[in-house]
């Protein structure tokens, strides 16, 4: 059984999953902080 497809699949899942998690957290943070700041500027 050629090991490399297994190795690459595992790395893809780990790195892809981590990247997605980071992206989601980053975007939710930026949106929320921008929203909170928008009120501050007006007030």
């Amino acid at each position, binding site marked *: *059984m050629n*090991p*490399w497809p*297994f*190795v690459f*699949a*595992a*790395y893809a*899942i*780990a*790195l892809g*999953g*981590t990247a*997605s*998690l*980071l992206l*989601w*957290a*980053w975007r*939710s*943070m930026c*949106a*929320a*902080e921008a*929203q*909170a700041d928008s*009120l*501050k500027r*007006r*007030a």
Partner: protein
Amino acid sequence: MHGYANPARFLKFARPATGWFLWIGLLLLAPGILGGLFVTPPDYLQGETVRILYIHVPAAWLGMAGWAGIAAASLAQIVWRHPLSAIAGRAVAPAGATFAAICLATGSIWGRPTWGTWWEWDGRLTSMLILFFLYLGYIALAWAERERGGDGRMAALFGLVGAINLPIIHYSVMWWRTLHQGQSISITGGSSIAPELLWPLPLTLVGFSLLFGAVVLMRMRAELAAAKFEARLRRTSTE
């Protein structure tokens, strides 16, 4: 609710820390991943599939450490009613669940060519799968409580009680005869992994952990910003 409308001390740490965690994490992860994929030798028994070690072990560690964090936050919530504890629990849960899922997926992929099966109901695999379901339960409970405006004490109780699974996962390979192999590394030193194969592991372990920390900080900042937004909205609407 209003208690954490302005948690200045936490944010003073969290804002710069997010960047540090993110960049140092990536800096450590890159050589770990590249080394594990292309530099280290194959294993005497498994061959090239041993490379999955460098991502499977950090994922398992973070899946478990995540719930330990939830348990600590839950304790703070129940005993001291610390205002940040419910937010901390909710911040950790998606990250912990993601790494638990990565652990199960990479483990399954590793098992097929080495053991000869995608899955077996042995002690370690089963208790890790249970941990993943516990995460889903916690996330559902915590989000439902937040929607209803609760203070998160049900989720905290769930987080505390669920922690019993952690020693079960850890000692499963010692208490029962399992298909999953035993410990290769102990904190007290000593490892049954040869140095030529070992070196990328601390890099990926710390690298992924720092990225995990960055995610937790970002999620806490997001929830705190949302709370601040609601507080300001209420203030301006009553003026």
